């Protein structure tokens, strides 16, 4: 996994609540057996006016001009500014894969859906929960200022706007450690393989039916 330390990134505002993972990456793209290449299809139904299919070259597809990702001022954005309950619905990790592949590294919202929130960390994306008031302010500033950027620093857990105002955000020490260092969580967990084995032996003794091999 790619490490995340800090970023001074262009902000793209997506001003609607309850953005679900079906909208982030529609189902037809879930047929891929790869982890990469989802970026061109991010928000496919909102971004293009035709129907997207896996493998399609998106260069000349008809775009919906009113959708933020299609507006030239947000080209190259790395920070996605969103509303409540972002990433609700299905557990598909294709959603953060698409977001990451597009180029976003940070998502700021007042709240996130649980599974999506966890999936972000596994893919080098930093999801930041900010108060509704702060998110409102960021939306206003972003609308008012072309080229609006935010400076995100994971080490100090802060987000700073162009005028120097800042707010801090929470992250568990475990997630911070993994993200800062780009660590493979499986490798970390396997350092405790003996403990897992010992637990398994106790568990099997107490509930042998959980380990029944044959009916």
């Amino acid at each position: 996994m790619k490490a995340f330390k800090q970023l001074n990134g262009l902000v793209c505002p997506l001003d609607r609540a309850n953005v679900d993972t079906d909208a982030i990456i529609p189902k037809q793209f879930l047929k891929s057996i790869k982890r990469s290449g989802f970026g061109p299809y991010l928000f496919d139904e909102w971004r293009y006016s035709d129907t997207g299919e896996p493998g399609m070259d998106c260069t000349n597809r008809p775009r919906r001009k009113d959708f933020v990702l299609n507006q030239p001022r947000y080209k190259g954005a790395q920070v996605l500014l969103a509303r409540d309950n972002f990433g609700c619905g299905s557990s598909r990790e294709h959603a953060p894969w698409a977001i990451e592949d597009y180029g976003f590294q940070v998502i700021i919202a007042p709240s996130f859906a649980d599974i999506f929130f966890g999936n972000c960390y596994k893919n080098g994306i930093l999801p930041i929960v900010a108060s509704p008031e702060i998110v409102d302010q960021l939306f206003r500033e972003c609308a008012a200022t072309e080229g609006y950027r935010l400076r995100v620093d994971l080490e100090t857990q802060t987000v700073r706007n162009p005028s120097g105002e800042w707010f801090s955000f929470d992250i568990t020490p475990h997630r911070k450690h993994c993200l800062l260092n780009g660590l493979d969580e499986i490798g970390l967990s396997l350092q405790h393989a003996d403990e897992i084995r010992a637990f398994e032996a106790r568990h099997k003794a107490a509930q042998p039916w959980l380990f029944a091999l044959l009916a």
Partner: protein
Amino acid sequence: MAGKTLYDKLWESHVVREESDGTCLLYIDRHLMHEVTSAQAFEGMRLAGRKAWRADSIVAVPDHNTPTDHWDAGIQEPVARLQVETLDANIKEFGALVYFPFKHANQGIIHVIGPENGTTLPGMTVVCGDSHTSTHGAFGALAHGVGTSEVEHVLATQTLVAKRSKRMLIKVEGKVGAGVTAKDIALAIIGKIGTAGGTGYAIEFGGEAVRGLSMEGRMTLCNMAIEAGARAGLVAPDEKTVEYLKGRRYAPKGADWDKAVAYWKTLQTDADAKFDAVVEFNAASIEPQVTWGTSPEQVLPVGGQVPNPANEADSQKRGGIERALKYMGLAADTPICEIKVDKVFIGSCTNSRIEDLRAAAKVIKGRKKAASVKLVLVVPGSGMVKRQAEAEGLDKIFVGAGFEWREPGCSMCLAMNADRLAPGERCASTSNRNFEGRQGAGGRTHLVSPEMAAAAAIAGHFVDIRNF
């Protein structure tokens, strides 16, 4: 010391180790898999040269991409076929306790086949790369969806890195009226607490109306917990749970069975346990529900009218209503019962079990679908459900009414196979999500119970099942 909730008991009995910040390694008993969210996890395992920690914890089936008709022709779409064949190959390489490949007599939706084969048991931790894993909480198992990275983590370590959720009790007291199902209870709950109401929580469902539900009904209720934002829903095991599991293929047998049942009886929330949140509902006041918008929380009793954005003071919410009405092609203030449907879908991990099919068949017996309804799909949840339904003659009732009786799978719940809505088509659906494009790009979904879907197919528009 304060008592423990069922969630606490399930959590604590699976903690392998805990870090100082509360991050735990949680042992996973059952790993359910389907073709859409597993390929990249197996690929990661292969690249790292890892073996499955416990292949006998795996129960797998292809369900999302499989067609529901013309099985003899196989899977037509090459990318879908490749994904299903990739699961075949991965299970062959890594192993599994149970694998029902495409066209196997017991193939079906993973959340239907797990319970019906007795591979979901009370007291277990159950994960799957699928958000509707919450279904299995109906058995008093801690069950929730995970992403593909976590699928790989469980494959490699038999554990998840996780933090304890907050605990919510949703109590539905009293008895529901005639025509009101588990689906209506679920939708009414989501309508009240919202699609983010359960975020950060594991929800235990309790109260007389929940205890009164069959295991199928409890599965429907827990299935929809994720639509309320909660990764896990729970119902404490009782005699109904034990009765359902007895004799199932992978349920414990002999002395193990008695020991297991004795343990399962301890899986109850203690009387003095504390919840972080409690929400109470009066079952008698819950009416048959119909969603009108593009989020499950945009739901109304069948007698209601589609909202008018002009009456909403909050600009964010007003914008949300306007957007939903536009997408759904609905005028403000339209009575729900005047909304006409083009297609009807009865199926999905929410409502494709035998009891759902019986309920739908009962409503339509001796009637015909409305001429204006283009297609009514009835898709059983599994091969076992299909055979049972056919043994009871339900298939003949459906076909006699002009419905299509199909092979099992996820089908038009998410339209990854050929079963889908065309742009602008409106569907009464027993599935779980009415998101934009969920049942096909531009398709319009109204979530309802099997009875309400069947009645809409006959009438051509929504009707109050209580007067049907």
